[in-house]
């Protein structure tokens, strides 16, 4: 077959408002197709096709970048834009800092930070728990984890807005912000080199040995930059979208208050259905056919994780949010060799954020029903205090 079924498919900005309907239509009528956005790309909308492409990294390369459009830089980000064999050496460098045990050690700090933020937003009856809670939490944790001054956390959020959420409308501004971040990160690396060694992310990066040779300055920077764009808004979005759902579904909110044990499976379900990373891109290294479509060497291929996460063939009642769903293998963190390095941490942060907010503050409901499910913007709620 030589067909190229075309759809006006986008997965950023306003397209997200109705993207779950779009996915459904695609899965039914055009599970593999072509979109002209961002220079043109194939998209895969079925769970199984996405899984298979992720496993076949030799055919679906991450070069030049997994991000479409780019994240304020042309440099390959490490490890996300790197193929095997080098990829695993980069990954191994930081893996020990992201195991469940490592995340357990960090959890008391996550909890304390969440409590402080919750108490702050809980002071008024109407509050923006997007900007006041979902966003600062991951940024504060991130600063500590990487070894940046904690009081700088709000700088990171501003950069994220310009780099990630501005890139589809203003690429030049996105790139400028990217350069500012790199300068900031570099100054910290230089500073750390003068200080006594410490076993945190930056400490491991600056002393790393890759395949028997010392890591280069560019590599350090490209790794640190990736962590910054990968770990902040994703987690903030996941916290916000979980709370967005709970603010609109009082029965489920009440159920989690009564039975906090359910919070971890509920968070898994929010990740599946309202995930921050709706899609990631690859590049075909050779001609390949998927679902009868002729993908050519060099074509960009978008793996629509968000669609795979709602595939009727993979889940019962896929569009329903079932907070005690037991079988929940999903793509919120991707799959295969590039699956999220920070998944244990990201997941833990979302669980703690939901638990502490429910634990410390009275039932809350959405005030502004126009606020979308996606992004890291405002989430306005009213706390219902006993009279």
């Amino acid at each position: 077959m030589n067909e190229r079924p075309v759809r006006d498919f986008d997965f950023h900005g306003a397209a997200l408002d109705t993207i779950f309907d779009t996915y459904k239509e695609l899965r039914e009528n055009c599970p593999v197709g072509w979109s002209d956005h961002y220079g043109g790309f194939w998209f895969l909308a079925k769970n199984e096709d996405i899984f298979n492409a992720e496993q076949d990294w030799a055919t679906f390369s991450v070069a030049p970048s997994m991000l479409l459009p780019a994240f304020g830089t042309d440099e390959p980000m490490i490890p996300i834009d790197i193929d095997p064999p080098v990829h695993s050496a980069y990954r191994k460098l930081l893996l020990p800092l992201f195991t469940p045990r490592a995340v357990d050690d960090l959890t008391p700090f996550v909890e304390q930070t969440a409590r402080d933020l919750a108490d702050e937003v809980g002071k008024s009856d109407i509050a923006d728990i997007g900007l006041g809670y979902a966003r600062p939490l991951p940024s504060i944790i991130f600063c500590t984890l990487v070894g940046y001054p904690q009081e700088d956390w709000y700088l990171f959020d501003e950069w994220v807005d310009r780099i990630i959420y501005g890139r589809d409308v203003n690429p030049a501004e996105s790139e400028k912000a990217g350069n500012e971040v790199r300068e900031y990160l570099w100054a910290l690396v230089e500073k750390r080199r003068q200080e006594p060694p410490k076993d945190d992310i930056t400490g491991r990066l600056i002393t790393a040995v890759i395949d028997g040779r010392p890591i280069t300055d560019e590599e350090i920077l490209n790794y640190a930059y990736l962590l910054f764009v990968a770990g902040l808004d994703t987690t903030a979005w996941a916290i916000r979208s979980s709370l967005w759902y709970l603010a609109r579904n009082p029965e489920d909110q009440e159920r989690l208050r009564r039975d906090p044990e359910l919070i971890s499976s509920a968070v898994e379900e929010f990740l599946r259905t309202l995930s921050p990373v709706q899609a990631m891109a690859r590049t075909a290294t050779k001609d390949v056919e998927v679902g009868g479509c002729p993908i050519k060497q060099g074509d960009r291929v978008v793996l629509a994780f968000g669609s795979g996460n709602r595939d009727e063939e993979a889940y019962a009642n896929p569009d329903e949010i079932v907070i005690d769903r037991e079988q929940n293998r999903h793509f919120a963190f991707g799959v295969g060799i590039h699956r999220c390095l920070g998944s244990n941490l990201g997941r833990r942060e979302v669980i703690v954020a939901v638990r502490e907010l429910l634990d410390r503050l009275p039932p809350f409901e959405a005030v502004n029903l126009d606020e979308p499910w996606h992004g890291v913007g405002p989430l306005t709620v009213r706390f219902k205090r006993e009279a």
Partner: protein
Amino acid sequence: MRVEVDSSKCQGHNRCMIFAPDVFEVDDYGFATVRADGEIPPEQIEAVKHAVVNCPELAIIVRED
């Protein structure tokens, strides 16, 4: 019933250890192995089934023998 982890598929996402901590363990990098000899005690069967259906890489194999 016996369980094993296919180390060529496991990417170290640690879901197995969350669902069945008495059956699986992970090394310093997060990659999973099965504790002891892989025989699943009856009271762990449910937990292992949970791990199987939630492992992102389909890396956990259960054999009925």
